[in-house]
C-alpha cells in the first residue's frame, strides 16, 4: 500500500476523516509536529467524502471519527474495507466502550483510540502504517 521508503525514510500518508474541522486541524498539527515520515495525505469532513478520496489518496492509514452526520465511522470503515480489504483504519472517537470496540472489530477496524489520547495518535499511525504487509 502506501508506506513507501524514500532514501531510508519511511513515508506514511494518513487520511484524516472528521466532521469537526478543528479536530482535523489538531490531528494535522500533531502529525506535522511528529514528522518522522508521517504526513497528512488527505482530509475529509464526512464518510462519503472519505470514500471518494480513498483510492486517489491511497493512505497508509485512515484516522476515522465515529460520530459524524450522515455515515458514521463504523459504516465508513466497512465500506472502505470493501474497496480496500487490507486498509489499516484507526477509529478515533470521543467515546469508546466495549460494545463499540466489539462492533469496530467486527467491521474490520485495526484499532480504536479515544480522542483525549490525541497525542499518542501520530506514533500509533506510524506504527500501523509501517506494519502494513
Amino acid at each position, binding site marked *: 500500500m502506501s508506506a513507501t521508503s524514500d532514501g531510508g525514510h519511511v513515508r506514511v500518508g494518513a487520511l484524516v476523516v472528521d466532521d469537526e474541522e478543528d479536530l482535523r486541524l489538531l490531528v494535522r498539527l500533531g502529525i506535522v*509536529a511528529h514528522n518522522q515520515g508521517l504526513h497528512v495525505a488527505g482530509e475529509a469532513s464526512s464518510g462519503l467524502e472519505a470514500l471518494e478520496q480513498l483510492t486517489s489518496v491511497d493512505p497508509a492509514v485512515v484516522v476515522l471519527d465515529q460520530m459524524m*452526520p450522515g455515515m458514521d465511522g463504523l459504516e465508513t470503515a466497512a465500506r472502505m474495507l470493501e474497496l480496500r480489504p487490507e486498509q489499516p483504519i484507526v477509529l478515533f472517537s470521543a467515546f469508546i466502550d466495549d460494545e463499540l470496540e466489539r462492533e469496530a472489530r467486527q467491521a474490520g477496524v485495526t484499532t480504536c483510540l479515544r480522542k483525549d489520547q490525541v497525542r499518542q495518535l501520530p506514533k500509533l499511525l506510524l506504527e500501523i502504517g509501517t506494519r502494513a504487509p
Partner: protein
Amino acid sequence: MTTRSGLLLRLVAATILAGAIAAVLGTVVLRATARDALRDDIRERNAASAVEVAARLDGRIDAGVATLQLVTSRQLVAALDPAADAELRTVIANTGDFDELVLYDPAGDPVAAAASRFVTSIADEPSRPDLFPAITTRPVVELDPGVPPTLVIVVPVENPPGTIAGALLARLPLEVAMAPALRVDAGLATTRFMVAADGRVIVHPERDRVLREERLPIEEIRAASELARVDIDGRPHLLSIAPMESLGAAVVIDQVEAIAFAPISDRLRELTVILLLVMSATVLAVIAVGTWLLGPLGPLTQAVRRLGLQERGVRVEEESRGEVHLLATEFNRLAETLDRRQDELDELHRLSVLVNTRTTREEVAAEVVAGSARLLEVDQAAFCSAVHDAPEILAVHGKVSEGRALELATTAIRIGRVHLDQDGEGFDAAVPVRSGDGGNVGALVMRRSTEPFGVDELAVAEAYAGFAGVALDNLARLALEQELGAELAEAVEQRRSLMRTVSHELRTPLTCIDGFSSTLLDQWDAYGDAQRQDLVTKIRHHTNDLEQLVNRLLDFAVTERGTMTADLQPVVLAEVIAAVLDGAQPLLEGRPVTVEVPDLIVRADPVLLQRALLNLVSNAVKYSAIGAPVVLRAVDDGRRIRLEVIDEGVGLTADESRRAFQPFWRAGHPSTRARGAGLGLALVSEYAQAMGGATGVVSEPGHGSTFFITLERDR
C-alpha cells in the same frame, strides 16, 4: 378366562359337596329308618311266626323231638316242669333280678316233654360243665296271647354260644326243658344250637363260632342263608333245616334280620352308585349351565380389560339373553360414554395446547371458535372480547348475527355465568371468558338449530372459555413483558447514547482546547503571530462551547431537582426577541430571518424566556439546511400568547414530535444526528413550565417544524 373357569369350578365343587352331604344324610336316615322298622317288625311278628313255623315243621320233625321256636333275637324261651318250679325260682332268684316268674305249663306239651329229656341228657354231658360261668336272667315277658307262658332266659352274647347249653344245665340241675335250639344274635349272624332227638345238644359243626369275632363277610352269611328261604306272611325267613335224620332234629333259624340287612347293604351300594351317577350328572349339568350362563361373560370380561387399558371403540355383541343382554347393553353404553369423554378430553387437551401457542388474541379466538364448533356441533360461534368496555367480535364460525352475538356476550359477561337463550330458529349459549384475576374479559357465543345445549356440552364450552381466558391472560402478560423489556432496552440504550453524546460534546472542545494549547506551547517559536492568534481564537471558541454545555447540564440538573424558579414580570416581547436575534447572530448568518411579533407584553421571566427562544432558534438552525429561512412569530389568541419558531428543516414524525421535549432525546438516527446533548428542547419545556406556560411542536417529515411556547399575557 381364569375368573370364569374359577367360577365354574366353584359352582361344581359346591354342587358336589351338597350332593355328598345329601347322600350321607340320606343314607344315615334311610338306614336308621329301615333298621328301626325292621326291628319293630321282627319283634311284632317273631313270636307268632316262629310258633307257626314250628307248627308247620312239626309234622316233618321226628315226633320224639320237641322243637321250640326262638321268639325274639335275644330271648331264650324255655318251658319248665312244674315240679321244678320252686327250685327254679330259687335259682333264678339267686342268680338275678327277676321280679316275676311266669311258668309255662308243660303238661301235655311235647315241648315240655322234650325239654325234660333235653335237660336230662344235658346233665349227663360231661364235656362242658364249666363253660357257662354266669347266667343273666331277665324278667319273664308276656308273649303273644297264642303263646303259652314261657320262661325266658337271656344269655349275654359275650358268652360263647356253643357253651351255653352245657353251662346252663350244669347250673340248673333241674328237669328243665330247654329250648331245642338256642339262637344268639351276634350282629348279623346267628349261631345255631340243635337238640337231638335223643336229647343231646348238638352244636352245628360249622357254626360254632361267634361270627362277630370271626368277622365273617356278609357274603358268607348270605350263602349260608340260602339254605332255605320261605316267606311267612309275605316276609322272608331263612330256615336252616339240617339234614339230620341221624340226629332226628331240625333247627329253625330265623334270620329275618340278616336277610333284611343284606338288601339294605345292597341298596346302600346301589344308592351309592345312583348317588355317584346323580352327582356326575349334576356336575355335568352345572358345567353345562355354567358355561351357558357364563359364556357371554368371556367377551365382556375381555372388553372390560381393554376398556381399562383405555382402548377406544370397545364394544361387545349384545346377545339376546336376559341379564347378559342387559349387561352387554349397559357395557356398550358405558364404553360409548367413555369414548365420548375421552374424545372431549383429547379435544380439550389439543385445544389447550393449541390456544397457548397462539400469539395474538385473534388467533386464540379463532382456535376456540373452531374447536367449539367441531366438538359441540354448533352452527354458528363467535368469540367476543370485552377488554375495552364494549365487546368486539374477534373470531366467528358460520354466519353469525353480530348484533345478537354481542348482545348475548354482553349479558353473559355482565352476569358472569352461562347465559342461555333461544328464538324460533335456534338455541343460543353464551359462556363468559374469565381472566386470571376473575374478571370477565369476553364470551364464547354459540348457536345451533338442532337442540338446546346440554349440561355436559356447556361444561365443555366452559372449559374452552377457561383455556381462552388463560391464553388471553398469557398474551397480555407477554405483551406487558415485551413492553417492559423494550422500555428497559430503550433505557439502557438511552443511557449509552447519553454517555456517548455527553462524552462527544464534552470531549470535542476539551480535546481541541488541550491539543491547541499544547501545540501552541510546543510550537510557539515556530508559529507566526497570525497562526498563534488563530489557535487562541479556536481555544476561546471551544471554551465557550464547553461553558454553554456545562450551563445546560447544570440548568437541567436544576430542573431535574424541581428547584428552578421563575422571576415572573411583565416582559416586552419585542425586546426579548431582539436580544435572542442578537445572541443567535452567528448561527443565523446567511439565513433569511422573518420576525412577526406584534407589540405585546407577556408575563414571564426575561432570562428564562430568552434562553428558551435561543434554544428554539438554535434548534431550527441545527435541523435545517444551510441558508434555509427561520421565522419567529407571536400569535395572540386573546388570552394567551403563542411564540412560534418555524423552520423548513427535516421535520419530525408523529412519534418524534411526541418525544421531542424528553431530555436526552435527539432526532434522527444516532449516527446521523447533529451534535448536541439532547437537552435543548427539554430545557425549553422546563423553562416554559417554570413560567406557567407550555410547549409544543407541529411538524411533518420533510416539511419543517413549528416549535412554540405559550405564555400568559400580562394584564
